[in-house]
């Protein structure tokens, strides 16, 4: 476990303004792409592990 030590002269303060419909739409497109890629990588990883396990059992 580690800490993110912000510099002493930096104050991390966020005040967000509402995102526009267009911004939210574009963000969701990008987010869904990234989520799909992540899901695809996870599925491939699981498939590889399953195949390896089956090969081990067969051997």
């Amino acid at each position, binding site marked *: *476990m580690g800490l993110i030590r912000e510099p002493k002269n930096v104050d991390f*303060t966020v*005040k967000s303004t509402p*995102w526009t419909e267009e911004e939210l739409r574009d*963000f969701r497109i990008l*987010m869904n792409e990234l*989520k799909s890629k992540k899901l695809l990588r996870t599925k491939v990883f699981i498939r590889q592990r399953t195949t390896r396990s089956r090969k081990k059992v067969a051997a």
Partner: protein
Amino acid sequence: MKKRRQKGLDFVIDKLTNSIENTATGEVFDTEVVQLRNTDLKQIHKADWQFDWTKEIKDKTKEVYKLTTANNPTIIQGLISIEDKQDHIFMHLIESAKFNKNKDKVYLGVPGNLVAFACKVSVDKGYQGFLAFDAKTALIKHYQDTLFATHFRGLRMFIETNAALQLISQYFKS
């Protein structure tokens, strides 16, 4: 980290344990993140805060959480206001207590701790850690470096899955 389980697969996060560091001694203190509700309004002294946290707590679309040290749950180290956008978490406000601001800040790690918590909420809700927020222009690079955040456009930024998992693993004991 403590989770209160409900029926089925759903669960409510009522308390999480992690840590912040005393700037003078380097001592690390365990912390807790607890939700503030309407009944907790008296815990907020308006003069101590830059933002109107009472308004945030009263807003039913938002959830406000306080960060305290585990051994002193009455002193608020920082606050965060988040909203469940159904496919990601949106961070409306985040603020450190006034004694955790400027060069004389007492503790380091308060905002990072709260952002990691928001990422954990996103993961727990099945949003794969996605967290969106606005940054001040001068801090965009800082957030990219420290929070592994991605610059979307203008002041808009977001934290994606890998960055969220990295932050969570940095802050939360497994």
